[in-house]
């Protein structure tokens, strides 16, 4: 199930909690980053972050139960990003610890990897419980001028 508001490009996509919907979410993200003038790297980072977070909502948040996930494009003069809302039990991904990347494989928990990627690939990563219940997670990246485009990734992993 994919719904778009009538009359031109919608800033919101609402999907059923089904991993089969992830490709549509990624297309939505790519389309909006491009329309906002984001470069390829910004698009790739936001696609990855949103895909990982929505996948977690579907797999963990709803845990196979029916539900919906709403993804909205959000923009300011300095940042572009996406807001993900669900009606699943409260869960704050921003509070998950950074996976121990340098540990032996035996001590790894790959389940936290998606959130780790979402955190390190973005400049803003926030969560709140919605007043009516459910979660809202927002990921944002700073707009970059073309002269910054090749200056590599901003890596927050070492700051946390």
């Amino acid at each position: 199930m994919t719904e778009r508001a009538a009359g031109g490009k919608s800033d919101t996509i609402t999907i059923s909690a089904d991993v089969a919907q992830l490709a549509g979410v990624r297309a939505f993200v790519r389309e909006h980053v491009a329309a906002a003038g984001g470069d390829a790297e910004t698009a790739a980072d936001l696609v990855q972050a949103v895909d990982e977070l929505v996948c977690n909502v579907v797999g963990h948040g709803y845990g196979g139960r029916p539900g919906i996930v709403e993804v909205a494009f959000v923009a300011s003069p300095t940042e572009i990003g996406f807001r993900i809302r669900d009606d699943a039990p409260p869960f704050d991904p921003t509070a998950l610890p950074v996976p121990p990347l340098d540990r032996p494989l035996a001590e790894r928990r790959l389940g936290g990897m998606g959130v780790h990627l979402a955190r390190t690939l973005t400049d803003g990563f926030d969560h709140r419980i919605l007043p009516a219940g459910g979660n809202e997670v927002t990921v944002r990246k700073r707009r970059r001028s073309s002269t910054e485009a090749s200056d590599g990734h901003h890596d927050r992993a070492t700051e946390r």
Partner: protein
Amino acid sequence: MDITTERPNADLAVIGLAGELDGSNFEHLIEAGRLARDGGARRIVLDLSGLTYMGSSGLVAIHSIALLLRGQEPTSPDNGWQAIHDLSAAPAEGLDGALTLAGPPASIERVLDRSGMLGLFAVYPDRATALAAAVAASA
């Protein structure tokens, strides 16, 4: 995502991926690895050159195939997302080179790098180079 498996010789399988590897299809890749292993493959080259996207679920699939080649069983995909969490039961000594990766596009290599998995697998620039190395290793 398209998955194609070739068997250059009895010991070796090459699994080629094209399209987007994500939470909807990573279990298909694990099954392709299992089929190859059950069919006698002791080494697998995973050709990533056709991938346009890989989510962290792809990392789980790669990890699972490496375990299968070690004769170990990743948690059943039937258990869904619990399988991802249970991968912490993987062996401590690291992986032994039975699974190698070929031709990851820059965006895919970045995901491998940021997850700390790049150093666990030999990564070759293309399928032919990876295949030659795998043949040499099994000789």
